[in-house]
């Protein structure tokens, strides 16, 4: 129980009063960053950095990492209230979170989201505490073919069973892939579909598309249905929190599944965004009432949030032990480590014991304090929906524009956001599904480079995807998941044919 001893020492380091204060400061800042699209962890670090030089490295990194927790919590807020994902990994939260808010259950959805975030992060920290060396070794098993298999699995877990017209689903997905391909091809360094416009060099950023499709598109739809948000009548009290907690207990299977998916995706490092999609997709597949997903099912909030946070948290492990950041915010923390002369890598756990265990202890505390902070603010957030629509609608548009601008400081992106907004409105009205488009946009680029890196490694032999038990198993699982809905609809067809034969 070497870890336990170290951990308790870590708690002793983290639990001082000033450290708790720094934690709170970092959390509040992080929540703000999560809420406002356009602010990232990097900005938070930039503000706090000057402050940190008067502290010891442990306090500093505790404060900076709390920005990270706060941002993870905060991302869910705008997704649920306004259908605007503040961070990429909150996209899947909008699918059921926003319908819940529209039904006047915003407080419930927020409570579910925050609690799930906490559970996901908590179990991921447990995994880091006790399995760090083992998990770090597991991460090393992942080369390009394995990455491709994971991306394939994410995709297969999510698609299928859609009620939308199949040709439109296909078109939406292909549009996502096409947009993902714009810009520089990482494998050959060639420019694709830029047609000489420098604005297109950087490609279509996922966040800009999502802010437009979901945020602006939703405002346009709301206008059509009358000048009001439907969630106005949200009842607001702390009782909701208790009631939601009791309800959440029945989703223990979803929690376990999403924690496992999240930890795995965080460590490999696949990232929090794919993890959230995979968590959502798997939950829908496993559920008895698949129809209720996308219409305001609490489980549809629990699944992606738990997975995203388990992934976001466990992503710190490869950063600490291998020096590869699993997310942009993790990368900023990595820069923070370097300034204090702490070189992330396999030896960090040996050479900087106090620091590492202080950080891990602060993960437990930071999350607990974070949960407390966000839960007490649930009524306030839900109350935002009571602001009259003529005030909140233009403010949301301005926030969306700021969010789109800050991604690359590019005005072109703001214009693209509007184009995506109109497209989102049209797509929703014409029953083109949005989820495959978004998923293709986020995974398309990664999946293509992993595939082509694998092909380079094997010199064009597709057999590399079944080369060892790990990649082979992942691919088999992906193909299985792809075939299940096809098999289901095939059976349905047979049954129908039989029925009609009997009739005839």
């Amino acid at each position: 129980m070497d870890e336990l001893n170290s951990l308790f020492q870590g708690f002793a380091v983290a639990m001082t009063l000033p450290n708790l204060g720094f934690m709170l400061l970092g959390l509040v800042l992080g929540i703000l960053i999560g809420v406002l699209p356009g602010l990232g962890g990097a900005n938070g670090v930039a503000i706090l950095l000057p402050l940190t030089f008067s502290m010891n490295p442990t306090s500093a990194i505790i404060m900076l990492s709390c920005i990270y927790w706060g941002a993870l919590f905060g991302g869910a807020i705008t997704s649920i209230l306004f259908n605007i994902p503040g961070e990429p990994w909150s996209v899947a939260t909008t699918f059921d979170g926003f319908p819940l808010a529209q039904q006047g259950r915003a407080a419930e959805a927020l409570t579910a989201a925050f609690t799930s975030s906490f559970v996901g992060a908590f179990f991921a920290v447990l995994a880091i505490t006790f399995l760090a060396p083992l998990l770090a070794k597991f991460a090393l098993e992942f080369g390009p073919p394995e990455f491709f298999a994971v991306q394939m699995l994410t995709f297969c877990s999510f698609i299928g069973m859609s009620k939308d017209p199949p040709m439109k689903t296909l078109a939406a997905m292909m549009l996502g892939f096409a947009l993902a391909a714009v810009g520089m091809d990482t494998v050959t360094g060639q420019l694709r579909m830029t047609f000489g416009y420098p604005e297109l060099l950087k490609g279509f950023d996922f966040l800009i598309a999502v802010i437009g499709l979901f945020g602006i598109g939703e405002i346009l739809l709301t206008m059509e249905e009358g000048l009001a948000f439907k969630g106005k009548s949200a009842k607001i009290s702390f009782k909701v929190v208790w009631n939601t907690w009791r309800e959440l207990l029945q989703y223990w299977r979803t929690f376990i599944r999403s924690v496992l998916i999240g930890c795995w995706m965080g460590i490999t490092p696949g990232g929090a965004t794919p993890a959230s999609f995979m968590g959502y997709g798997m939950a829908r597949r496993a559920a008895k009432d698949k129809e209720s997903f996308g219409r305001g099912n609490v489980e549809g909030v629990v699944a992606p949030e738990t997975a995203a946070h388990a992934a976001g948290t466990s992503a710190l492990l490869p950063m600490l032990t291998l020096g590869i950041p699993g997310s942009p915010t993790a990368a900023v923390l990595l820069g923070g480590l370097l300034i204090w002369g702490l070189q992330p890598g396999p030896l960090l756990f040996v050479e900087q014991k106090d620091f590492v265990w202080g950080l891990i202890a602060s993960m437990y505390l930071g999350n607990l304090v974070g949960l407390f902070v966000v839960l007490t603010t649930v009524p306030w957030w839900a109350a935002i929906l009571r602001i009259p629509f003529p005030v909140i609608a233009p403010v949301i548009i301005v926030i969306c524009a700021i969010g789109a601008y800050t991604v690359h400081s590019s005005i072109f992106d703001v214009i693209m956001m509007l184009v995506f907004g109109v497209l989102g409105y049209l797509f929703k009205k014409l029953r083109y599904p949005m989820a495959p488009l978004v998923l293709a946009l986020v995974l398309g680029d990664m999946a293509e480079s992993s595939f082509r890196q694998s092909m380079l490694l094997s010199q064009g032999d597709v057999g590399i995807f079944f080369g060892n038990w790990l990649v082979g198993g992942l691919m088999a699982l992906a193909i299985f998941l792809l075939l299940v809905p096809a098999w289901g609809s095939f059976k349905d067809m047979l049954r129908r044919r039989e029925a009609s034969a009997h009739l005839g």
Partner: protein
Amino acid sequence: MSDQEQGAGLNRRIPEAGVAALLLAVGGIVIMDSLRVGIEWADDGPKAGYFPFFIGILLAFSAGWTLLLTLLGWSRETKLFSQWSELRDVAAMLVPTTVFIVAVPFLGLYVPGAVLIGYFMKRHGDFGWIATILTALCVPVTFFLIFERWFLVPLAKGPIEAWLGF
């Protein structure tokens, strides 16, 4: 949305065909550019255009299919996309938003933002002048303080901000 009211709104076939045609065009562009960078499967894996080529084909095919169905059923389509009154409401949002975004390159984000908020509160809400002007000014100033001063994120600024010395 009611299904049978002819004439009271925009027939669904028009936006349906429009979106499908747009996607078909995008598919065409993707295919063309893929041909430029090479669509073969070289001996060390697919070239840069290999995947985009198939993506373009599938996009063009699926969009073409929708377009074809819409055109074939052109005269039989009776469903409405939206009623005219609903579309007017959408335009009431879309037009000011477009004006706002067109103004951003020239005036920055803050001034058009304030104007948009003010316009909306006056046009669609029953707020007094004082409340409107206060809100319209406070929101951009808050954003300025949060983004530029606190988080050090420079947002797009125009001549008015430059004149004020920022």
